[in-house]
């Protein structure tokens, strides 16, 4: 009994979590974090747990009302039981959840109301991302995780424990497919890990005639080919405070990998020394390759003039060759911005890319914003509701093209986190919401970035232990 008393006393005396600093000018400028006010969410998302940020607030009450369900939560931390949340979502699908909150601060009652719109469009239930400290050149303890967006289940699909602490690059799905994806395991025993229909292969996607191994790329929708860039990447740093690390290419080209024939194809038209090419992806139908291209400049001296245009070139999926001519889709010279990371929506309607003032490292460029192009008209749509005053980039589409996820450094400006937006058939995008976590204070202590969040409609059929076997026991298939 005395021990029990001691435990109870200790619990009673425990200091509550300090939410300072908060307010304008901090990384928690909004009254609630994550800020789930007036957002649109999918009808299958995990509970939106959040907390109130006012350090002086007390007696918090939050009431959620949908057509047939009302739920009230008391306390600074608003944490849902999954079952109750699912009932709320089911009742509100296609409509709104009305939220009314009140709390006491500075002797007054603060009242707020907002809505959460529950879209009838579900989101692909799986999200992969690499967890990495925003480091510089070196790494330690990397993990690639797969998160179930319908709850809080998370599992490692590759990690340092099972891969000799080697570097690994981010995992990408082809058109949101869980059965068609890849990532790189670097270093000794590494290779490109290709997941095709549940069958895993380790590929040596390099060729001595190329300037470097393959770096950025994407798998063709039919699964036979991959398009990649070869980049000689130079890390550097800005002298001015707050601009941090910069990365640029000393040289870059494109190549196509034929996964059936184990062949790599380079092309004279993209191997020119006076033009740099990077970030290649396929169009939704696989008949084109989009990539970014810029004239060669002396770097890093001319880095702030290094602007990449968005280019499209025909691709012949019968022969694995590029057609002609290359077509400039978005001119950097005319617009004075640099395009990065184009991504075609799986329905062929949209192209989402990022715009930075210069260069190819948008994740560290505060000005970097997402840009949505209607491929039917070439029109650029308004994304002001999505973008922030910090870097917004590294996006991917859901398999039905109704949702996209992107990494944003909004708030602290240092750590990328996954945010989701809905796109309606007319191109209207919605205010994004942050990946919900079981503990609403999760992001307060998180010291790693969610790198290249990528949506999948099914779980990938492997885990870190399977990757370990592949790393240790399987030789990488050579490519010619």
């Amino acid at each position, binding site marked *: 009994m005395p021990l029990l008393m001691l435990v109870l006393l200790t619990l009673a005396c425990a200091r509550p*979590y*300090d*939410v*300072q*600093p908060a307010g304008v*000018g*901090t*990384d*928690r400028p909004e009254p609630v974090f994550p800020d789930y006010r007036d957002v649109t969410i999918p009808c299958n998302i995990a509970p939106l747990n959040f907390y109130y940020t006012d350090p002086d607030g007390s007696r918090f009450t939050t009431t959620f009302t949908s057509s047939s369900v009302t739920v009230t939560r008391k306390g600074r931390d608003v944490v849902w039981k999954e079952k109750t949340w699912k009932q709320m979502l089911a009742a509100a699908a296609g409509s709104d959840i009305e939220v009314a909150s009140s709390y006491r601060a500075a002797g007054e009652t603060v009242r707020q109301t907002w809505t959460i719109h529950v879209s009838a469009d579900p989101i692909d239930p799986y999200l992969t991302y690499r967890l990495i*400290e*925003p*480091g*510089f*050149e*070196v*790494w*330690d*303890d990397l993990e690639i995780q797969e998160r179930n967006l319908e709850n809080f289940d998370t599992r490692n699909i590759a990690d340092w424990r099972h891969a000799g602490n080697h570097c690994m690059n981010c995992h990408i799905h082809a058109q949101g497919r869980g059965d068609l994806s890849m990532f790189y395991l670097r270093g000794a025993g590494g290779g490109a890990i290709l997941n095709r229909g549940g069958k895993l292969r380790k590929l040596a996607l390099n060729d001595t005639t190329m300037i470097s191994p393959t770096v950025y790329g994407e798998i063709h929708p039919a699964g036979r080919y991959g398009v990649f860039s070869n980049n000689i990447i*130079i*890390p*550097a*740093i*800005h*002298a*001015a*405070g*707050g*601009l*941090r*690390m*910069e990365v640029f290419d000393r040289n870059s080209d494109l190549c196509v990998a034929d996964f059936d024939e184990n062949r790599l194809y380079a092309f004279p038209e993209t191997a020119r020394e006076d033009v740099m090419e990077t970030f290649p992806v396929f169009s939704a139908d696989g008949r084109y390759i989009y990539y970014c291209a810029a004239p060669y400049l002396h770097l*890093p001296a001319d*880095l702030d003039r290094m602007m990449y245009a968005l280019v499209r070139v025909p691709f012949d999926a019968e022969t694995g060759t590029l057609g002609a001519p290359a077509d400039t889709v978005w001119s950097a010279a005319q617009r004075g911005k640099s395009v990065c990371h184009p991504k075609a929506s799986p329905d062929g309607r949209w192209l989402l890319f990022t715009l930075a003032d210069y260069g190819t490292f948008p994740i560290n460029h505060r000005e970097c914003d997402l840009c949505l192009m209607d491929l039917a008209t070439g029109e650029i749509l308004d994304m002001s509701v999505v973008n922030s005053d910090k870097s917004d980039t590294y996006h991917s589409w859901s398999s039905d093209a109704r949702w996209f996820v992107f990494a944003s450094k909004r*708030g*602290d*400006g*240092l*750590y990328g986190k996954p945010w989701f937006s809905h796109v309606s058939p007319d191109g209207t995008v919605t205010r994004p919401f942050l990946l919900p976590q079981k503990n609403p204070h999760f992001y*307060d*202590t998180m*010291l790693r970035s969610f790198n290249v969040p990528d949506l999948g409609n099914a779980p990938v059929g492997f885990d870190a232990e399977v990757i370990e076997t592949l790393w240790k026991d399987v030789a990488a298939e050579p490519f010619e």
Partner: protein
Amino acid sequence: MKGKGGRILLAVLAAAALAAGLSQCVFLVRHPYFRKLAAQNGISLREARKAWGKPDKVSEQIMGMVVEADRENWPKVSELAAERDLKSEIGTYYYNLANAMQGRLPDRLMDYYQPFERGLFLPVGPSSTPFQIACAGDVWFALGYMPLAERDAMLGLLFSPAHTGPRYLRRLAETNLVIGDFEAASKYLRILLNSRSDRQWAQERLPGHWSPEYQLRIAEKRNLMPQFDLVHGMDQTQLALRVLLTANATNKTALDYLLCYDLLTKDLDAFVADFNPAYTASRLYEEAILIFLAAKGGMNEENFVHYHIAPQTFQDFNRFVSIYKRDDGAARNLTAEFGKSYWYYFYFAAKNEKK
């Protein structure tokens, strides 16, 4: 557990617990800095032993320098460094830093082991040890170069045993306070506010809570920062120092670091180009200039005045040269008299390539 056997067992257990407690007390008394560095890294003693091994006198001395440098207690760092010349890069790194912060880097540079430029700036890269990386940012923060101070704090956090630790979080908070990026700083301050041991430190750095002394500290650091942007390689140490000096030519610590870097790498052309006698002076620099002038044919009164060459330094140089020539470049008759001169370093110090 009744009877005599039970009592004996209890007594044995109590004695074992007492012995373990006593052993722990002795350990803590003998290795206070090991414990403090573990605390700075946010790990228990058990975790520290696992990460760093069992401490000995040498590691305790180095950890003492690391801990006291974090407190900016430079006289204590010097005192610890002087206990014994460790002939290690980290030991020299902190000895140099402590001397620099007390305005005597060039005056003391030749008094102890110098592993060339690696005693000024610790290498940060795939071949660096976690301990080197953890310490590498201290010099950049002291010099006022926040981009590399922040980088190294981030990497220190990354390579620390638990991937956390108030030592790195405090540095990350402070570099961002200096930069003026309070959105970034607030992330770290919130974490520190929720730590019993760092709560007060963080509270004193919240907006509106800055003491006049802290305001002055931040203002001084901001005064050192580059006023323009330039993109450079991570390992372009001299360029980073020159950027600092372009922003603030009176940053004597940065100037001394640059000049000592030039001298330790035996780059006399760079040294002469970087040397501004109006901002710093030392017998070390006089010695280096004399080598340069002798080689380039500038041994005249005008240069002696410009570079503040003392007559005694010139006399000593002539004596060094005469012995050096007489003995066909052998060191044996120079070591006792000139072993702590730059001339001796310049002619006889050789890099251990294995390191």
